[in-house]
């Protein structure tokens, strides 16, 4: 009983463990463990055998009809597992970790109030628009400064400088 429980534990808990071959060797030898597994004849009694399926006269005419009438189609794509299982596990773990990091960073960014100002203004309900600004009858330059820490948006209007690039 004890080694059967151990065998089940190893098979269930360590699905990718290379050293499990010892467990298979034990299973092949141990009659007590074998008695807990369905034997070949026992299994066959529960299965449909090739000699039991009866006549299959309709298979070939249908296959010939499909082969002659329909154009060829590609095989269904299959995800092939290749390489060392360790690297598959490592890649999966790294992928999950990276996704968690991105999620954490995105949440932190949005909570910090550093999100795009346009989105935040629109979310506030009343969009902030400046169509034009004049100072002394001349077009002026406008600046919008967002100060999220102070929950404040400052609108700055400056007279355009005579020289290019200066305000």
């Amino acid at each position, binding site marked *: 009983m004890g080694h059967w429980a151990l065998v*089940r534990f190893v*098979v269930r808990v360590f*699905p*990718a463990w*290379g050293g*499990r*071959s010892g467990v*298979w060797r034990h*299973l092949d030898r141990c009659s007590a463990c074998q008695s*807990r*597994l*369905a034997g*070949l004849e*026992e*299994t*066959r*009694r*529960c*299965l*449909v*055998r*090739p*000699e*039991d*399926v*009866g*006549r*299959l006269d*309709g*298979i*070939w005419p*249908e*296959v*010939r009809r*499909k*082969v*002659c009438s*329909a154009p*060829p*189609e590609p*095989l*269904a794509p*299959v995800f*092939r*597992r290749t390489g060392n*299982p360790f690297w598959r596990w490592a890649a999966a773990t790294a992928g999950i970790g990276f996704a968690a990091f991105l999620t954490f960073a995105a949440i932190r960014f949005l909570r910090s109030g550093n999100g795009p100002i346009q989105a935040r203004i629109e979310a506030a309900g009343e969009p902030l628009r400046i169509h034009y600004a004049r100072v002394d009858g001349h077009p002026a330059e406008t600046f919008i400064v967002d100060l999220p820490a102070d929950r404040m948006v400052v609108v700055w209007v400056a007279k355009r400088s005579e020289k290019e690039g200066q305000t």
Partner: protein
Amino acid sequence: MNEPDLIAACLAGRGEEFRFIVDAYKSQVTAVAMNILGNREDAEDACQDTFVQVYRHLGTYDPARSFRTWIFMILYRRCLDTIRKKKRFRTFFMKAQAEPSRAMVVPPAEPSARGIAGEEILNGLRPKERTAITLWANEGLTAAEIAAIIECAPSTARVYLFNARRKLKTLIEERKDHGTLGAR
């Protein structure tokens, strides 16, 4: 004519020669499909689709590999497709199962080898476990060959086989206790 010659003849355009390949494998393929899918109608459809796919892709067959294993690999994919479709229409199939005349799809003239009790037992296994145990018991395939068919590592195939045999034993014992497993 042996198998490589038949394949060469089909590739040369003599499609009628494919009939011999179909006749050689149709019983094995249908039996495996019936064990995986649980009913004859789906199994025959999967069998036909498998042979159509085999014919269309004979050019990609690698002669270094076993032809039988290649056929079973294509059959396994077809069976998985069918199982996925059946899941989508679960409601319909639950209704069908409630009607004994539709659930018992094997014609009376050709009685199911495993009977209702056997079908119920196999329903307790997952599709990969059903595939592994069928290929092991019916076809005598090794874990490595089963792994090539269900496209996993050989050790994983052994786990499927182990779990299938363990569950099957438990279910058989339960049926014996309740006296519902009829002897053949």
